[in-house]
């Protein structure tokens, strides 16, 4: 772990204090110019802001979509559980780039979605879905939801169904049982799933690049632009560290909030 994770990150951190030299890679020095550039340029702050709100939205939506699916799988008969899990995992076998290509075929002006809606006379002109923020959000949610399902399902399986039955027997409604019994007990899964999915969303690259519009950019693309497209390794390294720190802070903060609520629910 030290050799393959910590050491490369320390090297990148060191690069972030160097200064970019056009045509010459970088000058070795100790300078905050890259961090100053980020914090003084509204464009990059906007990119980070976009990254955070898209990641947050995709995390919340995938949680809402994944929970019922995870519950059904957790409560399913043993005979069907394996098959259901395979169906959930199956999309993960397809790479993100290939999946994005599929979305492009679906969302394009002459794609399947528009073709069906026009044929049904539900539209008079094609919908403009490709190269929009909506397309990116749908694409990212499709990628991360299986991870959320797997994280939730493993915890939901450990919740004794008798507890839910007892609540229902005592007169609690279905919603009340879910809110006051199932959800608090499933919190460890919610925390694990949202943390994992949030991190994945913050670092999304292929889906935003292929499905987002010309002005849509998330941090991973901005890092790619700097390091690969213009060989500005120092600034790219600084962006990478800012992304990492932002992701860690937001993940730890959300985990702390959710854990506190989980403990409060348990003690109640």
């Amino acid at each position: 772990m030290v050799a393959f994770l910590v050491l490369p990150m320390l090297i990148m951190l060191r690069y972030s204090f160097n200064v970019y030299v056009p045509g010459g890679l970088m000058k070795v020095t100790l300078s905050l110019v890259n961090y100053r550039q980020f914090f003084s340029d509204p464009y990059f702050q906007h990119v980070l802001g976009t990254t955070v709100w898209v990641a947050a939205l995709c995390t919340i939506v995938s949680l809402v979509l994944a929970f019922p699916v995870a519950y059904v799988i957790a409560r399913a008969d043993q005979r069907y559980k394996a098959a259901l899990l395979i169906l959930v995992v199956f999309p993960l076998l397809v790479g993100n780039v290939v999946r994005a290509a599929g979305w492009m075929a679906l969302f394009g002006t002459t794609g399947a979605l528009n073709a069906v809606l026009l044929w049904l006379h539900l539209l008079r002109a094609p919908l403009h879905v490709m190269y929009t923020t909506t397309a990116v959000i749908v694409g990212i949610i499709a990628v991360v939801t299986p991870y959320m399902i797997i994280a939730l399902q493993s915890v939901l399986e450990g919740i004794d169904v008798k507890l839910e039955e007892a609540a229902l027997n005592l007169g609690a409604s279905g919603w009340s049982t879910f809110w006051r019994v199932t959800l608090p007990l499933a919190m460890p899964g919610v925390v694990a799933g949202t943390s994992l999915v949030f991190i994945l969303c913050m670092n999304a690259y292929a889906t935003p690049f292929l499905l987002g519009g010309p002005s849509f950019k998330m941090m991973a693309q901005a890092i790619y632009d700097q390091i690969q497209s213009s060989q500005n390794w120092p600034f790219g390294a600084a962006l990478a560290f800012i992304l990492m720190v932002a992701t860690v802070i937001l993940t730890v903060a959300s985990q702390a909030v959710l854990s506190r609520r989980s403990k409060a629910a348990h003690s109640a």
Partner: protein
Amino acid sequence: MFDDHANPAAREPHRLSAFSRRGFLGGAAGLAASGLLLGGSRAARAASNQVIVSTWGGDYERFLHEFVEAPLRAKGIQVLPDIGQPPARMTKLLAEKSLKTGQMDVVHLSDTDMFQMRQDGVLARIDYAQVPRGKHIIKQFYDDYSIPHIYSAQVLIYNPQHVMPVPDAFAAMWDAKYKGRVGIQRTAWVIWLQIATIVAGGSPTNYEPGKKLLMELKKNQPRIYPSQESLADGIASADVWLTPDWKARGYLWAKRGLPVKTAVPKEGAIPVTYRAAYAKNAPDPAPSLEYLNAMLEPKAQMDFGEQMGYVPTVTDVKLPADLDSVIGFTEEQRSKFFHVDFAYVAANNNAWLQWWNEEFLA
């Protein structure tokens, strides 16, 4: 994590340190083993007749395999492709710069990118005594650090069913009648700056007039695509009627059935050569130089021209007249080629990318 009672380390602290010692020894052994393997593989590469070629995938790699590498394989040289996009290749070259032996031998890049790699000091100087075909290289494409493989130029690619009359200048893309019909590839910021500079009357070392004119193009609501392939989809669906691209690309698209023709702009096309070099830290130059020489062989050059639509870069290969009329350039057209100042491009590329993202695409 939430319950120390469940954490075995919390209950039995001495086991934690024992694991750490075992873990450290295991990790160190693993590192040593991988170091031996790596060193072993480098030594093996130096000893074998093997060349790792870092190049584009798709048709380019397929044609290299068929037209360039077949004679090399017959000589017992093993060619291993390393497929990827130019930014990845350049990053690898730079990342491996300090290593005694790199992981790639021959590297393919466009002239602009190759110039940058030369400036960064990662390319070996070519000993042309070992590349006998080098004496046939077209003089304007000759370089000490890379050989030119094929060339073409940015021209207008248009849909003849929708674009009338035949456009004869890059300036046609600013015509209001093509509002919403001009296609732009998002990663082509340098090309677009050069085109706008040509139209605006700038120079090879002053693209500022081009920047201003590009902002005017935004009023024409161009369609912006993330990649070459998605731009082709836009052309196929007739969303895009007009776009600049390599004349060779237009030839390939037409061959594929897209409704396109090409027109060389009267202001002057923007040339590109696709080049090959070998890394300074390649373990053995001999197979790399054989590879470079094979790329300049007459049959390989002709086959590439016929299949990919790029013009040969050697003086002793003449395309058939019908092919030359579709992919080639007349003497007059070559004399009007925009002179790309690679040093100016390398010095400003990062700033232009920032401007492209923050001003033009915003």
